[in-house]
């Protein structure tokens, strides 16, 4: 029930933007003409219509970066990276923007090739491979039970499918265990992180724009966030960060 109005709104904004584009140019043309705020508006409308397009998130990130909105740009690059982690351009721009925020794409102490391999597949792709291997394993096992005479040949294929199921399942599980369940990016120039969910609590530390944080819990207008790099956590106003969930 709630999905229908949201889709309608996205459709309306897309129609509106289509009308604007015909008068002012496409977002790409606006970007090329250095009208970055116009490009941001255009790509934002397109992203609302196609939230699972890595290219659109990437292009919106580029427009935001050029428009001086580092935090929001990193949020969009992160979404694009989550959708298509093998894309070299997305990887480059995310790393470039993170450096501006004082962070590295590859965490300190992690060999870059290991980080690349660990993020070779997107979360959805990993889940897809895991389920494909699961289907194959169970179907082959069923066939082996039904056709005892062919169980030997089927068994080898089944063992391979089972190994793939365990491999991709383990990979998927490791990603889920090691990565924050929900990530957010600081979008204010300096976000004040307090020791509790309210203005009455003292400011424990500040975080610069563009810093990626983990969302731990929520309390009204406040989010409890964690900074993995520094091992710190605290509460920040929800409008100081942009949450980067599953597109």
């Amino acid at each position, binding site marked *: 029930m709630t999905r229908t109005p949201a889709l309608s709104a996205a459709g309306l904004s897309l129609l509106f933007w289509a009308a604007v584009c015909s008068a002012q140019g496409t977002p790409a043309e606006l970007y090329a003409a250095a009208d970055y705020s116009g490009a941001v508006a255009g790509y934002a409308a397109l992203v609302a219509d196609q939230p*699972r397009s*890595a*290219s659109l998130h990437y*292009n919106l990130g580029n427009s935001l970066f050029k428009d001086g909105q580092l935090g929001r740009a990193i949020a969009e690059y992160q979404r694009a990276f989550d959708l298509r982690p093998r894309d070299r351009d997305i990887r480059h721009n995310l790393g470039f923007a993170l450096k501006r925020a004082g962070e590295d794409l590859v965490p300190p102490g992690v060999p870059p090739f290991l980080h690349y391999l660990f993020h070779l597949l997107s979360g959805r792709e990993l*889940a897809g491979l895991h*389920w*494909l291997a699961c*289907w194959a394993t169970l*179907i082959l096992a*069923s066939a082996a039970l039904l056709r005892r005479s062919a169980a030997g040949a089927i068994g080898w294929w089944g063992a391979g499918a089972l190994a793939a199921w365990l491999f991709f399942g383990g990979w998927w599980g490791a990603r889920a265990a090691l990565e924050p369940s929900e990530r957010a990016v600081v979008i204010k120039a300096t976000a004040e992180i307090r020791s509790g969910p309210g203005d009455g609590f003292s400011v424990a530390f500040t975080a610069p724009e563009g810093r990626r944080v983990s969302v731990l819990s929520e309390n009204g207008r406040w989010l409890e966030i964690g900074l993995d790099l520094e091992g710190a956590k605290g509460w920040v106003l929800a409008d100081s960060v942009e949450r980067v969930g599953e597109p």
Partner: protein
Amino acid sequence: MTTSLLLAAALSLLPAPLRAAADIMIRAGVDKTSVALNDQIVLEVSVAGPSTSMPEPKLPSLPNFSVYSSANSHNISFINGKVSSSIVYTYVLVPRFVGKAVIGPVAVTTGGTTVQTDPIEIEVVPPAGTRVPGQGPASPRPSPSGARPSPGAPDIFVMADVDKKKPFVNEQVTLSVKFFTSVQLLGNPQYDTPKISGFLAEDLPPERHGNIEHHGRSYYYSEIKTALFPASAGKHVVGPATVRAQIQRDVTIDPYAPDFFQRFFSQGLVGAEDKVLSSEPVEIRADPLPSEGKPPDFTGAVGRFSVSAAIDRTEPKAGEAVNLTVTVQGTGNIKALGDLKLPDMPSFRVYDTVSSLSLDRTKDVVNGSKVFKTVLVPKVSGPLTIPSITFSYFDPSKRQYVQASTPALRLKVGEGDAAASAAVAASAPAGRLSAVSEDIRYLKLNAESSALSRLLEAVASAGNAHTAPFLLFAAVLSMTMYQEREASDPKGKRFRGALKAARKRLTQAAALKAEDPKRASSLLSEALTHYLGDKLDAPASGLTLRRVIDLLAAKAPGLGSREHDEVREMWEELDLLRFAPSAPRGKGADPAEKLASLLKILEKAVRR
């Protein structure tokens, strides 16, 4: 013509330092040539030459003065590609004796050649309104308050103290050495600085003088201050400060003594006594700088600083030089500031940074500025940015590290001429890419995910459909297990399937009743005999009624004689129907219905 060419060639073959020495100029000057004994003069020595690193001048021996180094300032200029610089060293000289004094030649040596200044004559006059040492004996000054001096109060003493005993490493500690006297001195006292190890020291001129009351006695005092910066954490000791002074010694004069005249002519009527006074050592314990929160670019600056950056032009052409000036100023040990780390600027050719220093000691606090000048040459045209430059320091008042930064500077670089661009391009190693600038990559105009990715994403999004293979497997597994169980227990299989088989025959018999009554009767009989055979684990073919009754009695003890009779009746009725289908039948119930009822009773009663 040939001679001048040869001379030029010979000059060009001279070692570079000699030529540099010949080009170095040194000048010395004072702010006044006549000075009162309680005043001071400022000596400025200027060294100039065609190099960024100039040698430091060497002062001559100045026994008539106490010398304090005050400051130096460094100016560098680039004109038509040539570098010239000058350093001005400032010294404060405090006279020690009345009379004529000479500041000897100040020399600077480089490349084995020495250049020096002319000597400067200074006349030191007695201070106005004060007694001149040696003009007559002085008596202890009366206390302005009229209080009686305490009997133990000394005539002359030295004290040393610091403003803080637990500073951080490289934080300023001000050492104050005070010399008190309540008697007339014969000449200016000589001050030997305390032994200071473990500190970087900076004089804080001028020497201060005044009157003070101490223990009911009025003293004239002189104070010398020194800024100390602990070089390392831990305990450091400032050694005793020593003052050597001559004071008047009371002499009992006996005009009839045999050596009266000898003493009168050799010493005068007043006796002089040498006094050597020392202060107590001062202990300072320096705390280390905290390791938490230390920025990566921190180089040891402690104090309070600000940083600013400026460029001399904002619209140069590619290949033209732009002077970047970064100024770090504030309070702290400016001399110890490390080099400034400039951010990576691949769009520029960056030349070596030259720094100059300016010190100030207002209110006994060492402060000033350090200016870093760097020549940048844009490699390419277009809008370029000099990124923000950061400078980190430790603020002891806040007890935390602070990172000061400049805003980014933007330039609009025009296209340069071919020669300049070629010169810049030549700086890149042959055969390699030359990184010019770093930026994000351009938009993606038509890149979408692959079909395999889309397939995998669709599979991942299947939701509840992923239960299907599990259900399939569970069903196949259950069926297989059931089949295996049946195969391993044929008697049980017969027992469990007995009723089903009997009902099947009943159904077939009902269907054939009209067309083939004999066959239908035969099927009913088979239904009963096979059912009993399956249930009682006996072959149906040789089964007799007697055997059936015996087996029922053994395996179905719950059945009574009435049920046995019903079985017997049913058996005999079906035999009759099978073997004599035309024989007259009673008006009882239909045999098939009766058999179905009997089977229900037997199904409940016969257990395996």
